[in-house]
């Protein structure tokens, strides 16, 4: 479904990503782990079109995304739940969700989407009339996830959904992600610093360090890898 070959991204002469290649098949749950500043967020932004690629190719559903703008990529069914949530603070919770279903395919089935999101995150239903900027961090994360789901995406990009949340909330968010996946058979690409939880959830994972893929494999292989155990699992 998503195939990246030799992708490089540069910020003002600095290489954020260098010749990254990866593959996400339809229905798969793929995780990218790695330390801060490894280029994980940049990778997701390059996929959704927020940063331009310096070199390489991103193919989605057999189609070269090339120079397509972010909005055009979203219309193709790529939903990006960004780092730091980035909800629309001066819009109400409901309006945020409505904007999630801005693309035509999703707009037609907006009511159905709202029911699904409210069932998944009941607090959003209670606070639907309030401004998103007044929500707590955990609720904003629910809203960002819900907004992404409202798009009825084929590919869901999740950037650090656990960031800045209390452990109990993190658990709830990861649980929700697992449920979303089961219910909708979504293809998910997750970027996380919390390696244990992220790798537990996924089918396959890549380890990204200083802009390069240094390791890849299925969940079991990766959890058993001595380098991963040493660097990320504290074993």
């Amino acid at each position, binding site marked *: 479904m998503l195939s990246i070959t030799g992708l490089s991204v540069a910020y003002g002469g600095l290489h954020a990503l260098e010749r990254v290649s990866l593959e996400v098949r339809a229905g798969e749950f793929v995780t990218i782990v790695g330390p801060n500043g490894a280029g994980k967020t940049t990778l997701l932004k390059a996929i*959704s*079109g*927020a940063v331009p690629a310096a070199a390489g190719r991103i193919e989605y559903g057999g189609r070269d995304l090339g120079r397509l*703008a*972010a*909005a*055009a990529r*979203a*219309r193709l069914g790529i*939903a*990006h739940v*960004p780092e730091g949530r*980035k*909800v*629309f*603070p*001066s*819009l109400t919770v409901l*309006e*945020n969700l*409505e*904007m*999630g279903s*801005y*693309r035509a395919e999703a*707009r037609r089935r907006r009511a159905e989407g709202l029911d699904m999101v409210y069932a998944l995150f009941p607090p959003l239903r209670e606070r639907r009339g309030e401004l998103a*900027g007044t929500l707590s961090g955990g609720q904003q994360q629910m809203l960002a996830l819900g*907004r992404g789901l409202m*798009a009825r995406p084929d590919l869901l990009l999740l950037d650090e959904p656990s960031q800045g949340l209390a452990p109990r909330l993190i658990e709830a968010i990861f649980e929700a992600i697992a449920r979303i996946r089961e219910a909708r058979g979504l293809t998910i690409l997750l970027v996380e610093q919390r390696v244990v939880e992220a790798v537990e959830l996924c089918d396959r994972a890549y380890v990204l360090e200083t802009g390069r893929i240094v390791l890849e494999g299925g969940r079991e292989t990766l959890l058993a890898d001595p380098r991963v155990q040493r660097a990320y699992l504290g074993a």
Partner: protein
Amino acid sequence: MGGIYAVMSIGLALIFGVMRVVNFAQGDFMMLGMYLTYYLAVAYRLDPLLGALVVVPPFFVLGVLVHRALLVRVTGGGDPQRQMDAQLILTLGLSLIITNATTMVLSPMPRQIRTGYATEAFGLGPLLVNQARAYAFVMAVLLAVVVFVFLTRTDLGKALRAAADEPEAAGYQGIDVRAMHGLAFGIGVALVAAAGGLLATYHPIEPTVGVNFIVLMFVAVVLGGLGSIPGAFVGGLVIGLVQAVTLLVLPLQLQNAGVFIAFLAVLYLRPQGLFGRRLRTV
């Protein structure tokens, strides 16, 4: 007066809120709106109150074209400081060009639309309300309501606000942020032109009339809280009110002194403006 200030200020606030561009040419678009209304009144005997509505579509198109031809070059991406410099120079330059071209083509001679109601007044108990101003006020409030409904009840309006809030995330929802900029600029220009048309029911029209009003628009927008639409509306009303009250105690030439004193007082007590958020999420 307050209602018209409110409409012009909403136009400016919309452009700033969505694009983060301070449009110094806003007063000149207002002036052009006055002239178009004037010529419609002269050539077709069109009442300026209606003329103010007729100028909306052409000025919307003009705004979209100006955005597409000029402003896209200095917005969206790049070094923010340099972009801001470029935007200031662009809109100031645009303002100078429009003022001087209008002076050249239409002469600096002031013109006035004569309407039957400009010199009539309603009696409201002991008060006399000038009819032209009363009608213009009602029209202005109606325009503001239409804009408000558009922004809060339609998908396009909500997308406009979303693009103002978080442009990056708006893109992820499939909202074309550049198109939203064009839309905001078009609506902003159309609104200020309509406000000009309403103003033309009782205010003389000359090429430099915009300068007198752009300052008041800025005050209204900052008073209400930068980029806030309801804030700009209330800010405009407050300015009209303060002007009127000042007129009771100070000579006509000093009516804006009252506005600036009120402005300083608000900034001192509530620096984020009446409707501003204390913190902006970055």
